[in-house]
């Protein structure tokens, strides 16, 4: 799956320049997610105190940022096991996320969830869970509720190429088309489901874009490592969905750099073809975008350095917050079994 292959699948929004303000926000967002995740991965591996299965998004940040940077706070998103980038890009509270990884009472789920169960209602991040595909219908339900309430609001669902193999993906998309729901499904096709490559899971040459289009959705695909392309396609998708024209399926080609679950590299496992990781690293979404921004004169080294420093401080503060926060006390074991 290359970005080129995707382009042939559907209309490509070739576009003009992204407005400077938006572009700068994107670069900042990508940089921030990258630095946060890198630092967390480091700490995770070293301390062994963030004791929960953790799936990093390093290498895939442009999708999260390109999509979420165009959303209002009260527009909602769902995600799955690999949700840090979506959570952060949507504006989720960093301290609460880090504390959640440390299993602390101040965590976004009070420690009961961990990395695979992030939530931040304040910014419309309504939840992520690690059962592949599960949040697709839940996200559609979110949009459906808005329609039932006669106040249609966009909902965005993030998931991977593996999730596109689930029955509920099809059931949900068909329902969204049937009811013309304001849903945008964002599929990050990173070529793998755990260690399994696409060829043992999906028919060769069969395009997810064609499938989605056959369901009756608007289907758009492009290069997920090019933030501008993500931005443009997303803009088109949002205009469609917000305008009441029904759901959109967005597929972005991208690539995961670290192991499927955990903070380390995994080239020794041998499931990635020789050189593949390097080739994708050459298309680092951060570097690509930073270079472009510099070329456009919208950013320079000094700006990047100052943002880097600021983000560094932010992460360290969040890590300190997480470390120093109290654990939930034993009596919290049975709180929140039932809502009332």
């Amino acid at each position, binding site marked *: 799956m290359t970005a080129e292959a995707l382009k042939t699948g559907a209309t490509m929004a070739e576009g003009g320049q992204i407005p400077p303000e938006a572009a700068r926000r994107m670069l900042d967002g990508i940089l921030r997610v990258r630095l946060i995740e890198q630092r967390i991965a480091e700490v995770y591996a070293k301390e062994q105190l963030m004791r929960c299965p953790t799936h990093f998004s390093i290498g895939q940040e442009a999708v999260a940022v390109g999509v979420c940077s165009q959303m209002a706070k009260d527009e909602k998103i769902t995600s799955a096991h690999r949700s840090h980038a979506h959570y952060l890009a949507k504006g989720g509270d960093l301290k609460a996320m880090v504390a959640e990884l440390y299993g602390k009472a101040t965590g976004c789920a009070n420690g009961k969830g961990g990395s695979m169960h992030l939530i931040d209602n304040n910014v419309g991040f309504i939840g992520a869970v690690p059962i592949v595909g599960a949040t697709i219908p839940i996200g559609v339900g979110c949009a459906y509720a808005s329609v039932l309430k006669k106040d249609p609001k966009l909902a965005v669902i993030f998931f991977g190429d593996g999730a596109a193999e689930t029955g509920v993906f099809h059931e949900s998309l068909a*329902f969204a088309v049937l009811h013309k729901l304001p849903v945008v499904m964002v599929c990050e096709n990173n070529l793998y489901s755990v260690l399994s490559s696409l060829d043992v899971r999906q028919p060769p040459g069969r395009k997810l874009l064609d499938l989605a289009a056959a369901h009756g959705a608007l289907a758009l695909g492009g290069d997920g490592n090019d933030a501008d392309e993500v931005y443009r396609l997303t803009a088109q998708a949002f205009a469609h969905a917000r305008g009441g024209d029904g759901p959109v399926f967005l597929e972005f080609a991208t690539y995961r750099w670290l192991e499927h679950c955990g903070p380390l590299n995994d080239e020794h496992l041998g499931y990635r073809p020789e050189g593949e990781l390097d080739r994708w690293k050459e298309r680092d979404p951060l570097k690509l975008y930073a270079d472009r921004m510099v070329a456009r004169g919208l950013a320079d080294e000094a700006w990047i350095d100052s943002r880097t420093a600021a983000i560094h401080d932010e992460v360290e503060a969040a890590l300190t917050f997480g470390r120093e926060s109290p654990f939930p006390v034993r009596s919290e074991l049975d709180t929140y079994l039932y809502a009332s």
Partner: protein
Amino acid sequence: MSERQLKFVEALKEAQDICMAADPAVYIMGLGAPDAASIFGSTKGLAEKYPDRVIDMPVSEAGMTGVALGTALSGMRPVMTHIRLEFAMLAMDQIVNHAAKWHYMFGGQASAPMVIRCVVGRGWGQGPQHSQSLQAWFAHVPGLKVIMPATPYDAKGLLISAIEDDGPVVCLEHRWLYSIHGNVPEGHYRLPMGPATRLREGSDVTIAATSYMTLEAVKAAERLAAEGISAEILDVHTLNPFDASPILESVKKTGRLIAADTGCRNVGFAGEIVARVVEGGLKDLKEAPVRITLPDLPTPTTRALSNYYYPQPDDIVVAARQLMGRPAGERQKIAPEDFLDVPDSSFTGPF
């Protein structure tokens, strides 16, 4: 309290009607929910009254349950309805992995007020895939509430409680209860999801029963009374959370327990009743408790076998006699061709 008589199915419908009138967030989704058959009449007229809130759906139980959950997380109160429990089997991931745990696993940040109604089929050859009574499963899942009303009064009161509850509730409705009549007050009332209700007072033997087995227990108790055996009946209408205290209290008095459930035996709900009573009241027990359940077999379709598959009031009677140290006595004869596959003569095929 009014003495108005309603059918069980009418009570279910009225509960939904009242909740829908009171709260625009309540809506019904289910295969055929708005159609002319209206889930055996249990949603009758609601689609006309609330045209935007009784919603048909594709045959996509897993996805649609996820959609319903998503709406519940967004302020709606879906009542997802399955005309057979088996169809909910497609949606176990959404019900058990997600809806049941959402509130807990997100530290109370969100809640999932939704009701999942499942009709438990029986008779007229419903067979292996249209008659399973899997309350044991749902009752085993922390975070789900599970109700099995056995009377029209309870059907309405419990279903209102369920719809108004802020978490997921599974409501299992035995098909053979749909046409029974009972006293149902008008207007809004709740029966809290809580301890078993005493339906009949007695002193010799405690019968703790669920759903349709409660009706069978009533029939048995009448026969037992004629023999001078006084049975106390406790209807377990809420299986999760399960409060067994009224059963323990009753066994303190009677010293004898029959646990009668509509499900299978191994790791079934009757076993839980027994375990609770033994844990809390071993010394009260004069005799070993008896479980009346389905055998651990799939449901056979032919009535020649299902006639022997479903326990009868007679089984309760015989168990009670034996608990009282009396001879088992003659068993009622059942012939293979008997029409035990319908609850009453008004019931004809195909369902």
